[in-house]
């Protein structure tokens, strides 16, 4: 097994790229995907530490995060579809009304 | 010695079985898939009162190769408005997913790439489900209405039927108590029964779901040629199309293997624990030898000389294979006369025979696929969805519970078969209820909803 730092760097890199995606992209769907990427980066850490400490708890939490990501994607995409139906757009900076 | 070379040698020494199996899968499965197509065409022809491919080779035996060559040298067309990158990628995904998922399948006690992976069946399911990314992306990338309709249909269909199929598999897994492929087969050996007899409803649901997952008739809506031309494959031609096609047939082999492993006893021969049936172990060699004899018989009837030669070649190949199957027994025979010295090939018997029985069962499963395809008309999309969501999925859930209850009853001392039959009755009753309920529902719906629509114009 590689040293833990390697995994941490990998996870950090993915996390950073995800953050950049969230901040820079205007397309809400891609923003959601970037969030999935961030969650995934977190998962790498959890699995890594589960391996280091020889405890399954880390993997259990990684599973919970996957479940959470699924829930988030479902609701997020539901919102996007509802929004698209009303405004015909999926761009973040055009979502500028609190109510329509 | 050069350390890198040494490392490579060590690596090869450790993994050579796996690597060989991998190479065999990648090299042989496309060929096998081609021949599955030939068999399908021949069967279809037989059921439809015609002959099928007869031109290339005796009885069309070389047809798959001719097809492959033809597809390879065909013009490679990418539509102008297509998304070139995805259009290129999609068939590759389909094919790779199908071949990769074969890695965890045990084609016999010793033919397996990922041998000690303890999530074997999940691996097969998960990776083969990646294949429909290829379908949906290909449908999207083609930029054609037919393709996108086919892709949408296939996504909805696969998601629905994977649920039902997954629940059916869970019933089998409950019985075996392990996710590992060899563990499942071992469990069936230990229980002295194939799981299809303990969980027949699950096996049936898996059959239906696997037909739907592989896009075969009567669930072949994503590529229904009379409606959507060719569905997601409409814009594909040449070798890309061939990749899709091979992926589809490889997928059939995968689902057949899963069903065989889970419900049909994997590589076990019929009645593996009954000793007076041990003569069944001779059957593989005998059957293959008989095929060879039949080939010789047919060789004389070939109209062209080269075809006679080809039939002889087939016969000799059959004899060679039969000899390989029979070799361990022959050597035992030689031992009786004190001839063969210390040579013994007994260790290959389970492997070879296992592979034979496994492939035989997979073929039988695929034969059922084909048989249904030639017999049944195609479902309509809404009917397909209703069947999946209103009947198969609830039934699969009920079945999972029933299998659990049956196991509990057995653990509490009830006879296994009694427990099984009791729960089976419950499951069948609920199946009848579901079908009745659904029929009544659609009948009232169709009379109510049709009228305003059809007279709207």
């Amino acid at each position: 097994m590689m040293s833990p730092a390697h995994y941490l760097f990998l996870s950090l890199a993915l996390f950073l790229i995800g953050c950049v995606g969230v901040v820079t992209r205007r397309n809400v769907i891609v923003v959601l995907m970037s969030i999935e990427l961030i969650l995934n980066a977190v998962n790498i850490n959890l699995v890594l530490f589960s391996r280091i400490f020889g405890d399954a708890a880390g993997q259990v939490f990684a599973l919970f995060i996957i479940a959470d990501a699924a829930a988030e994607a479902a609701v997020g995409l539901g919102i996007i579809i509802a929004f698209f139906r009303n405004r015909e757009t999926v761009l973040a900076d055009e979502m500028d009304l609190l109510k329509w | 010695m050069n350390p890198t070379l040494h490392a490579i040698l060590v690596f090869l020494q450790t993994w050579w079985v796996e690597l060989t199996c991998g190479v065999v899968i990648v090299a042989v499965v496309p060929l096998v898939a081609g021949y599955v197509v030939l068999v399908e065409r021949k069967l279809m022809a037989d059921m439809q009162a015609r002959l099928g491919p007869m031109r290339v080779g005796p009885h069309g035996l070389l047809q798959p190769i001719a097809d492959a060559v033809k597809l390879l040298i065909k013009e490679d067309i990418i539509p102008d408005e297509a998304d070139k990158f995805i259009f290129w990628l999609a068939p590759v995904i389909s094919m790779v997913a199908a071949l990769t998922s074969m890695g965890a399948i045990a084609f016999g006690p010793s033919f397996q790439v990922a041998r000690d992976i303890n999530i074997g069946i999940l691996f097969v399911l998960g990776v083969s489900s990646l294949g429909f990314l290829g379908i949906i992306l290909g449908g999207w990338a083609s930029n054609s209405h037919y393709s996108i309709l086919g892709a949408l249909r296939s996504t909805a269909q696969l998601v629905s039927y994977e649920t039902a199929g997954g629940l059916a598999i869970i019933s089998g897994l409950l019985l075996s108590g392990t996710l590992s492929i060899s563990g499942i087969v071992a469990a069936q050996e230990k229980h002295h029964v194939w799981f299809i007899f303990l969980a027949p409803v699950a096996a049936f649901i898996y059959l239906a779901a696997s037909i739907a997952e592989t896009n075969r008739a009567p669930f072949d809506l994503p590529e229904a040629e009379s409606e959507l031309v060719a569905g997601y494959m409409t814009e594909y031609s040449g070798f890309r199309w061939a990749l899709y096609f091979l992926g589809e047939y490889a997928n059939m082999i995968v689902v057949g293997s899963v069903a065989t492993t889970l419900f049909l006893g994997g590589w076990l021969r019929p009645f593996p624990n009954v000793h007076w049936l041990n003569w069944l172990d001779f059957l593989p060699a005998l059957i293959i030898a008989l095929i060879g004899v039949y080939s010789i018989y047919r060789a004389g009837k070939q109209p062209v000389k080269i075809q006679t030669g080809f039939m002889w070649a087939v016969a000799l190949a059959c004899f060679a294979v039969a000899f390989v199957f029979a070799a361990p027994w022959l050597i035992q025979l030689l031992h009786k006369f004190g001839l063969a010295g210390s040579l013994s090939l007994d260790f290959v018997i389970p492997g070879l025979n296992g592979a034979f029985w496994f492939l035989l069962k997979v073929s039988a499963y695929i034969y059922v696929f084909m048989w249904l395809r030639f017999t049944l008309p195609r479902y309509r999309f809404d009917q397909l969805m209703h069947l999946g969501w209103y009947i198969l999925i609830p039934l699969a859930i009920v079945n999972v519970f029933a299998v659990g209850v049956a196991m509990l009853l057995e653990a509490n001392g009830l006879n296994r078969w009694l427990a099984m039959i009791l729960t089976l009755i419950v499951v069948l009753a609920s199946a009848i209820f579901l079908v009745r309920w659904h029929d009544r529902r659609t009948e009232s719906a169709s009379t109510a909803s049709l009228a305003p629509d059809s007279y709207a114009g």
Partner: protein
Amino acid sequence: MGNTLQDDALPNNNTLLGADELVLNMGPQHPSTHGVLRVKLKLDGERVRGTECVIGYLHRGVEKIAENRTYQQFAPYVDRMDYVAAVSNGLGYCEAVEKLLNVEAPPRARVIRTILTELQRIASHLVWLGTHALDIGALTPLFYCMREREEILKIFEKYCGARLTTHAFRIGGLQYEAYDGFEKDVERFCLDFERRIQEYVDLLTGNSIWIGRTRNVGILNAADCIALGASGPILRAAGVKWDLRKAQPYAAYDQYKFEIPVGTNGDTYDRYMVRIEEMRQSRLICLQAIEKIPEGAIMGKVGKVIKPPAGEVYHSIEAPKGILGYYIVSDGGTQPYRVRIRPPSFINLQALDKMVRGHLVADVVAIIGTLDIVLGEVDR
């Protein structure tokens, strides 16, 4: 024809995601539009909101050609309209001209005509059944149907040398005497055919998928049928007992006993059942007819040059697909002044829009199949 795409007044937000409706071009190159029919479908998801048929890809100007041919010369052209039922086309045309000339074909000719026409009806229905089942996804019936149709075509070939576009009849009667063993061939086919029909019925009628795909699909009730002029099995499936063979008998139909099968619902399943039963009835007619074919001449009193008196005539027969009418105007010359043909496929195709609205794409295919159109006849 039919309603155009614009007149559908459904609100836009009724569709999936409120997006524009998808216009799907089905044909002219599509596996199941039975030729070069092009149907523009306006889809909401998979639900059809409107259709527009584009026809004319096979237009050959048959009616105009008639004005430049003598009456005999035009007869082979009509075979090329409904090319799966060429004999029926020829019968209609020959009888129309005979009516114009005021001659009658001799009894022997009329009986042989009846036999051949009924065999042709079976052949046409077999093509329909095979392709219709193929459209719905059943692969095998097609080959069974073609196998039986082959027998019929062999009889045609023996009789007149041609299989498809036969030009079997001549104005005034027949050119060819029935060959030796004609009765035996027909009888053998008819006796065998009952068992064959049972094969199709076994494959399809009770199959729950088939029932699901056809029952309540493409309902066209009696009033609509009459309003649209739909005829043939479509009309009878809606419960109207109207068959020209009984209503205004032609050829030798008045001599034979047969039933007119009718449906109740007017849906695709009823049309299927009606056509299957019609095949059985045709078989019975053939069996009755070959029992005694009257002796005598096969050609009526028609001169070498056909020159009908000035006037007009309309004659219609019950072709396999519906009422096939010929309206011929003569100015007293050797060539018709005007020929107008009422092709059943063309008229029946009008019902398509009404039948498919609200159904799914898969049903469109089933409904085109159940209409039993031949594009050669639609476009002429």
